[in-house]
């Protein structure tokens, strides 16, 4: 390809400029300011004192007692643990539920595949808030699940909120929100899979579960890794599921961050929690890239 509008260096940077400028100025710079603020002292009015202090990070692990001594406080670590645990569990459930769906869709005729994929993506494009809200109606007191159970006598009248406002409710919300993000990349990698390999394994007297384990899953690993990262990362930073389905006491990292910028008015601490969240995201991404490169090399051998 020779000279076009975007082929010369000048044209290239002119075309690329606005995107890089907008994301650079309104995303990269704000993230930089956020990291800086996480190393400052909070101001009672919701602002910050402009001097270096690691106190926000210290606050994540310790609190001050009456004598102004630092005492280990695991409260925030529990929130981190809950976020990691729920995101991990949601990822696992999404994989177990989603892989068979991707497998099923791939084996339909092409026109059916498109429709099925469309059906899977529709809920994903629905407003996050509306999706969580729908689960409040389903899980809550006098809800669609609660009422029949009560009527059948499975649950006594004293069971106040069913499973709404529990970790289970958050988990359901997370799985519901991110399931399509697991199915789509697995589908994409299964679509490229050569089914003759599955056939060959069967010809060699492998039973289908073994063929699945030793032939299909290893070849679908890039899609599986992509699905895992696409579910785990946003689930870890989720705000809405815990906010609406977890009640006010079961926070995840996202809620902790949000609280510091609304009621608690502690910007440095909120920024520090956001930085910690971001570090976990970067670590997951790094692990993903590493794994992907490794399996990519193995597959190309």
């Amino acid at each position, binding site marked *: 390809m020779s000279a076009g509008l975007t082929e010369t260096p000048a044209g290239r940077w002119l075309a690329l400029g606005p995107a890089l400028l*907008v994301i650079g100025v309104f995303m990269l710079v704000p993230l930089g*300011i956020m990291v800086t603020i996480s190393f400052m002292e909070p101001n009672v009015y919701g602002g910050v004192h402009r001097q270096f202090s690691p106190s926000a990070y210290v606050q994540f692990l310790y609190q001050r007692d009456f004598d102004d001594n630092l005492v280990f406080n695991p409260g925030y670590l529990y929130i981190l643990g809950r976020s990691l645990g729920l995101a991990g569990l949601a990822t696992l459930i999404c994989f177990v539920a989603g892989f068979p769906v991707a497998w099923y869709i791939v084996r339909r005729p092409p026109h059916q595949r498109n429709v099925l994929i469309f059906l899977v993506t529709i809920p994903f494009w629905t*407003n996050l808030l509306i999706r969580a809200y729908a689960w409040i109606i389903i899980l809550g007191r006098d809800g669609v699940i609660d009422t029949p159970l009560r009527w059948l006598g499975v649950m006594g009248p004293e069971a106040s909120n069913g499973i709404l406002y529990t970790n289970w409710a958050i988990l359901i919300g997370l799985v519901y929100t991110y399931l399509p993000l697991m199915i789509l990349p697995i589908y994409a990698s299964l679509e490229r899979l050569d089914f003759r390999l599955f056939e060959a394994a069967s010809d060699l007297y492998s039973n289908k579960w073994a063929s699945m384990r030793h032939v299909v899953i290893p070849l679908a690993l890039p899609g599986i890794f992509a699905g895992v990262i696409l579910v785990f990362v946003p689930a870890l*930073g989720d705000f809405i599921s815990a906010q609406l389905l977890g009640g006010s006491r079961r926070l995840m990292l996202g809620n902790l961050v949000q609280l510091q910028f609304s009621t608690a008015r502690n910007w440095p601490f909120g920024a520090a929690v956001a930085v910690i969240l971001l570090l976990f995201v970067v670590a997951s991404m790094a692990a993903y890239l590493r794994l992907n490169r490794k399996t990519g090399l193995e597959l190309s051998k």
Partner: protein
Amino acid sequence: MSAETTSPPAPHLAKRSARRRRAFQLGEFRGLTLWVGAVLVFLYFPICVLVIYSFNESRFAMNWTGFSTDWYGRALANRAARTAALNSVIVATCATAMATVIATAAALVLARRNQFRGKTAAIGLMSLPILVPEIVTAIATLIFFSTLGIRLGLGNLIIAHTVFSIPFAFMPIRARLQGMDMSLEAAARDLYATPWQSFRLVTLPLLAPGIMAGAMLAFVISLDDFIISLMVADAGSTTLPVYIFSMIRFGITPEINAISTMLFAASVSLVTVYWLLSRPRR
């Protein structure tokens, strides 16, 4: 498509489809269809409940007393909801217009099979808004605007939404460009078209479905965005999802269901258009 299925298949195709069928039977797992059905029910059950209960007569969302469309009337007459919806549409329209233009220009450079210094970094920067958790983007933007004292009302939201929508507009446009026959551009140049002419008369018309698809996606993303709007919007520039959130906090009513159902219908229509536009031609 129908012609394909009715005409008798050529012998080699028949052989191939028989072989394919055998492969399909080999991959049959008992209960698979049931499993897939259960997952689809799981995905659609909440949406169905939401829609059904929006037609509930009772003022308590969970207590079904009879069919009624009153709540839609009430939702449409709700002035605060209408203002919020208008804000949402204004923000989404402006953000979509800017994000789509910006993303198209970037895709024209990044989708080609060329290498230049900084290409990987540029692609990385382009996908940053997707990689960073939304709550982090939200507070970083909040800190940025408030530290610099930028108070543009809806303008703040439009900027934040533009940044967030760029990668979503970018993806379908890049996909379209990568699937395009580049020899047409070369042909235009061989026929002495100026670069600008070949772009306007050849590239742009071919790219149009991708640009439309990207714009649809950006619009839906902006319309549905909640967390960034919640943190960045000031009192006067509430968007519809933020308004719904404030309503939920006061208890759930069929009116919320009615508003949510309408927002859901809007998103689904847009995504359907996107799907039809981005479907590969057969």
